[in-house]
């Protein structure tokens, strides 16, 4: 089961730089190539999302990535097929799936979770399913052997963080800024503070995302105790630049922009 990949990865290293990719952005084929490129550049984990038309917990860069994928007809089944291809090519790389609640709800929790596992997902995070309403989904994940993650934020109280940490078996996803996803510069100090406060109180691995875009930020979150640094909006913006640079073709432009953006960030991992 792919869930084991996650445990293995955490056992292998304390520091993972994980790109966040919307499956099918800008096309299913190029989307696969982007995942491949990321791994070849040194990503030891992937966070992947299924495109949703109303991603209200994301910022505009990710919303546009979702839209590009939807325009490329990357429905849920198509997204799963991309995951299968990635998993076949890189069977040990953990894929953490991020999906809005209504896609899971429409498929049916159990069916969705099984398909996720079959597609190679290690874990599932539903950003708009807060803890109190997530019992059914957590039970299903357990049943089908899918890892389960929860979100916490800068305003989550310590008690609540501990409660959520106790419920997850994949990792705790810490949103680095109160706000929606979106690349930001600076503020490394306050992130460090926040990550430290969060990670030091819990046993489970802490993954940090939302707004990371520099090597310094990533180094800081690792230093403060995070074990995964997710880079999303920054890469979505790079992909967008590639898309806007000319005809899509085989995606060479997109891949080039993506590689240029991602490569320096992987270097943040202490060797």
């Amino acid at each position, binding site marked *: 089961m792919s869930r084991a990949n996650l445990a293995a990865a955490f056992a292998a290293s304390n520091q993972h730089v994980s790109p966040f990719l919307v499956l099918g952005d800008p096309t299913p084929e190029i989307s696969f190539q982007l995942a491949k490129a990321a791994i070849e550049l040194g990503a030891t984990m992937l966070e992947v999302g299924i495109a*949703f*038309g*109303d*991603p*209200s*917990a994301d*910022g*505009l860069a990710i*919303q*546009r990535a979702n*839209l590009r994928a*939807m325009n490329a007809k990357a*429905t*849920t089944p198509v997204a799963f097929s991309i995951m299968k291809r990635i998993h076949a090519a890189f069977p040990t790389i953990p894929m953490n799936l991020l999906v*809005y*609640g*209504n*896609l*899971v*709800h*429409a*498929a*049916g*929790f*159990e*069916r969705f979770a099984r398909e996720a596992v079959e597609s190679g997902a290690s874990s599932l995070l539903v*950003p*708009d*399913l*807060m*803890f*109190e*309403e997530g019992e*059914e989904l957590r039970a299903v994940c357990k049943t089908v052997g899918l890892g389960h993650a*929860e*979100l*916490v*934020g800068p*305003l*989550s109280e310590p008690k*609540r963080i501990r409660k*959520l940490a106790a419920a997850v078996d994949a990792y705790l996803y810490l*949103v680095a*800024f*109160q*706000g*929606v996803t979106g690349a930001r510069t600076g503020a490394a100090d306050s992130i460090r503070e926040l990550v430290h406060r969060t990670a030091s109180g819990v046993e489970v691995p802490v993954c940090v995302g939302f707004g990371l875009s520099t090597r310094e930020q990533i180094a800081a979150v690792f230093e403060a105790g995070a074990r995964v640094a997710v880079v999303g909006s920054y890469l979505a913006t790079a992909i967008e630049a590639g898309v806007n640079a000319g005809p899509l073709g085989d995606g060479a432009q997109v891949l080039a922009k993506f590689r240029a953006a991602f490569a320096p960030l992987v270097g943040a991992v202490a060797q």
Partner: protein
Amino acid sequence: MSQESILSPRKGAFGAYGGRYVSELLVPALNELEEARRTIVRSSAFKKEFRGMLRDWAGRPTALTYAPNFSKLCNLHVYLKREDLLHGGAHKTNNVVGQGILAKRMGKTRIIAETGAGQHGVATAMIGARMGFETVVYMGARDVERQAPNVKRMQLCGCTVVPVTTGSQTLKDAINEALRDWTANLGNTHYLLGTVCGPDPFPRLVRDFHRVIGKEARAQWAESVGDLPRAVVACVGGGSNALGIFKAFVKDAGVDLVGVEPGGHGLESGAHGATLLRGTPGLLHGARTSVLQDEFGQILEPHSVAAGLDYPGVGPEHAYLRDTGRARYTSVTDDEAIEAFEILARTEGIIPAFEPAHAFAYLMKAVALGDYEAGAKILVNCSGRGDKDLDTYRKLYGHRLAGAGAKMGPLS
């Protein structure tokens, strides 16, 4: 797919609907709001301020108007609850007064809102001006176009109107943007949601601020008509004006509660906003409710000539009332609504908004449908006035203004 999960909300549930399907990041704000609802809203000081402002600033009570000529056309006795006379031009004002006072008492200095028809935006801008909030309203770029007069009204009240250019550029996208803003600014900001949708506690909060509509209507009815109405009818977008008038009659088993959804170009066309008639359970904007969505759970683009009904979700309490059978939902098309809009203006001198025109259109065929015996007494919520829709009317239907501007000068 489409074998949706059997999910039942724990918090703020209406049967299997409602709840809080939001990001953890919004939890502190919702908890704070729920706490405020239980303490502040229930306090007598709040109630007094709320009642006073509804009366002195918003102009309550609104009239109950018998419509003799329209009644004849419908073969019914039709009474209008005149929310079109409320300050701002629609029932929306009740809710913003309530939430405005609440936000102030919660210490917020900034309010944000989404708007479709612009009526909720106008109401929010007005209360923002009156109570001294910094006010930002998100509005789909398409709605900014088709409801231009309301944009001007908001701006005049000192409010920043942000056109939302993502997605279908209508109400649902404006809500997405407002949720993003709120998430980022929840310390000083209250999200003044405009209808009985969204995560708990909004559906209950907004509903309770609109209860005054039904309460007043019931008392006025008792005074000037007598027995109870045979039916209470309202249009349903998010569902706030409908719940506001329904709630006072929910326990009266003999009173039909009828919600009229926007049938757009017809239910079969797919271009409609009939969420309760054609939706399936889903999670939208923080609640489990009836949603227009495809087999994968992608939200569909709705259509209605009435911007205020052009929404792919609906208040969860309506889904519950539908399932329990206490309320009944039906729909009329754009064309039927526009015809009723014209007829009410021509027969009663009352120009309704396109939204309540849907309720009037239903009444025009209700007896023929066998829904009521001829001569039955019906209470209908005239939720807003049509001034905001005149531009759209002229563009889409202006040629129907028979004799408009026709020179019929003096003899010479």
